């Protein structure tokens, strides 16, 4: 009996490992920045280059930092979701315009709508590196004390917003 049970048990264990392993998204790399202070920066604003923005300006409120670019294809998928979120006035979204060109970025916002309270320009991608950005779009949930509480890699879908981001925002807003 044991002769058959042992290989069978090993086989089942292997299947379970495969089932878990293959259902994981290898592109999703856990960020070491979760529960760390959001890296500081001072950057020009996209629409008003004379003005600057730094994360410290958002102290006291929960906010989203959304990394986007006009060249990024999946940003187009998530954009309507963000525009819709902005209309609901639940949480301010700051855009980090990553490795883009100002005219392209401005035209993109004019064409698809602007869900951001403001966007900052990270044209050489240095701030993106500080935030561990490796695949645009990425979205960070930052709390009132300026600590990163969540990171979402890839486009924000209505489902991700409903199940992941908004519950976190609600929890942090308390």
């Amino acid at each position, binding site marked *: 009996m044991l002769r058959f049970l042992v290989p069978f048990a090993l086989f089942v264990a292997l299947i379970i490992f495969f089932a878990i392993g293959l259902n994981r998204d*290898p*592109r999703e*790399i*856990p*960020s*070491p*920045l979760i529960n760390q202070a959001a890296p500081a920066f001072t950057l020009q604003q996209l629409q008003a280059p004379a003005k600057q923005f730094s994360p410290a300006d958002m102290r006291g409120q929960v906010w989203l930092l959304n990394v986007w670019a006009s060249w990024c294809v999946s940003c187009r998928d998530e954009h309507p979701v963000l525009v819709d979120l902005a209309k609901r006035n639940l949480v301010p979204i700051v855009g980090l315009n990553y*490795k883009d060109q100002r005219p392209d970025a401005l035209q993109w916002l004019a064409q698809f709508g602007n869900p951001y309270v403001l966007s900052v320009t990270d044209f*050489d*991608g*240095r701030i*993106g*590196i*500080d*935030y*561990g*950005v*490796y*695949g645009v779009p990425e979205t960070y949930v930052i709390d009132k004390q300026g600590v990163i509480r969540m990171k979402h890699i890839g486009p924000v879908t209505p489902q991700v917003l409903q199940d992941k981001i908004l519950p976190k925002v609600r929890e942090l807003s308390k």
Partner: protein
Amino acid sequence: MTRILLGMFFLSLTAFAQAVEAPPTAQDPVLEARLNNLAKELRCLVCQNETLADSHAELALDLRREIRDKMRQGLSDAQIKEYLTQRYGDFVLYRPPVKSTTWLLWFGPFLLLIAAIAGLAYFLKRRRRVLEEIPLSAEEAARLKSLLHSENEQA
């Protein structure tokens, strides 16, 4: 004749095209060699199975630029790795550090090896017991003898 000349002219233009693509940082071969050595130990986040040294992804170029800057500022290789893991996690290192979460990764194969050797030893021991020597009966011994004998004659 003019066609050949024109052709030669256009061909000569490709030399310029290549000259433009040459990396602008080749001025410091020592630093580039150090960068290359370090980049071989680091994973490109975009193409995941390529090193930072091999990858042509935009992010890899940026990270190489960043590493180059850090080297110029006098940071050691260890400090640069630290800088990158703070941002991207241990995943950027091709050689993961030994710590409690990676014990299984580092020692798992040896555990499997030990388990396999133990299993094999157990199996062999059991088989020896099964294959215990059973002495031949007188009849069998006689038959064996005659068989061996006839075999010898044929040869």
